[in-house]
């Protein structure tokens, strides 16, 4: 919305009094504040490598691919995350699910699921978009690698992030979908 002249409030500069015009008292006043902080420190610095940060549960770190109750990848390769991704860092190749999965109503699964963690901007849109709660961002923040290739996470790596974070207990499966989801539907029978 364009601003109009009536939106602008004109403020005059505050007039400086005698003490301010002398500069020195005003300066001493500033020194009182700054030096006061030296003697009454309110340091909140975390000593990072020794002291692990306490991250909120909805922190957006490294992705993981969740497993279902039988340890299979939950993802149904619907490409919603890849479509929602503003950085185009998700690459999926879909395939018909293995026949033994199909009796549970699994028709499609990701043959490959690759996230380029370097391209990702960790916005969490993929997690928002996922209709089956298969992709989640964990609280893993110290992602390092020695090459670009190492930072391209494939399906196995993403599933191992799930194993690692659930075993460590840092990231319980946090999204629970609504009623309109494949995963939340009770399987037949």
């Amino acid at each position, binding site marked *: 919305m*364009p*601003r*109009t*002249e009536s*939106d*602008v409030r004109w403020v005059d500069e505050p*007039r*400086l*009094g*005698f*003490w301010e*015009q*002398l500069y*020195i008292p005003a*300066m001493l006043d*500033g*020194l009182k*504040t*700054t*030096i006061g*902080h*030296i003697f009454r*420190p*309110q*340091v*909140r*610095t975390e000593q990072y490598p020794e002291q692990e940060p306490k991250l909120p549960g909805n922190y957006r770190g490294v992705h993981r691919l969740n497993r279902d109750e039988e340890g299979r990848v939950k993802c149904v390769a619907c490409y919603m995350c890849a479509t929602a991704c503003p950085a185009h860092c998700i690459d999926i190749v879909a395939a018909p699910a293995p026949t033994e999965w199909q009796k549970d109503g699994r028709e499609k699964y990701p043959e490959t699921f690759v996230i380029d963690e370097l391209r990702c901007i960790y916005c969490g849109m993929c997690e928002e978009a996922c209709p089956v709660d298969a992709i989640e961002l964990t609280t893993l923040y110290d992602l390092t690698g020695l090459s670009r290739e190492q930072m391209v996470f494939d399906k196995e790596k993403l599933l191992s992030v799930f194993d690692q974070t659930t075993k460590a207990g840092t990231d319980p499966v946090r999204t629970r979908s609504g009623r309109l989801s494949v995963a939340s539907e009770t399987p037949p029978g």
Partner: protein
Amino acid sequence: MPAFDPTTTAIVIVCLMAGVLGLCGFLTLSERKISAWMQDRLGPNRVGPFGLLQPLADGGKFFLKEEVIPSHVDKVFYVMAPSVAVGTALLALAVVPFGPTAPPPDPVPVAAGAVATFEQAQAEYQNQTNFVLAPGLDVGVLYLFAVGSLAVYGVVLAGWSANNKYSLLGALRASAQIISYEIPLGMAVLGVFLIVGSLNPEKVIAWQTANGVWWLVVFQPLALLLFMTAQYAEANRLPFDLPEAEQELVGGYHTEYSALKLGLMLLSEYVHLVAGSLMLVALFLGGWSLFGLEGFVTHPVWAAAVKTLIVCGKMFALVIFAQFVRWTIPRFRFDQLMNIAWKVMIPLALLNLLCVMAVKQLGWPLGVLTGTSAVLFLGAGVVSVRLSGSVTNPKRKVVKLPPGLPAGVTYAS
């Protein structure tokens, strides 16, 4: 003072330079620590206990980093600039007293026994140890100013040779600033020299110690204030660090410097600060005297050590104060900077000088000068209030745009 001995002098020069440079290294640490404490942070605490070895790490970093000389620079001047900057800063240390000093004896009026008296005084002077590199220099402070203004060459060379608009802008600002602040810097201390009657810092110290606790700061507080302010500006320290204002000029005149050359550039500013503070101690704060406390130690060696400590302590306090000021006050605008020098500090310094001249001429007690300083200072405030601060901060007319154009945009004219 023992006769000139090249070996001893060389040793002293090396020790002094090493001491000052080492000190500067730790001043960077104190700078960072103080800023951290003021801002509720911890500051460097990884290298050594409490981060005490941080200066070594920083120095090592400066040595080991890649030395980039950009292809577009004027190589001769580019390489020359940091050495000029550090060299001129270090040259200033030649006349600043950093420990106990004794002034050379005054000439003796021609009279009976004058020669004997003179020779005795000379002999006594020979036995004194002066903690100055070049003792007995009667033009002392003039030399300091002369060398100090050379520092602008380092900055201008750096800015010009870098072939970079930010560097050049920084250098231009720096030269304008340093030249402007030379004047109040010199004028402020003229009163001191009038009172003492000499330009030799050793004599100024001697005058103060002879007067006991009545240091010159008591008689010339305004001069101290002006001198200190001008000295900050000379050293390009905040609030006068416009030449390297990184928000506007990237790094100012040292934008194109890297590794050790950058280190030297940064170092020269600290050397300036140290030299200036030592000078301030000598001229206003009684040099090596401390309310007679220094007299309790009689052993000559220990006494010299104590006096050196007193000088260094005073200097250190001043430097720390400068750092407090740096992290407290925001940067001036360039027009404000110039207005303060030309419209406030120079007139005040001139008036102060006039007062000193009048008091000396009329033979009034020096205590009057304390009063005149206060009157001048407060008077400046009153004048400022009457003029609504337009001296240093001229009012600019704000023009509202005609309707139809985006609101909130104003043009200053």
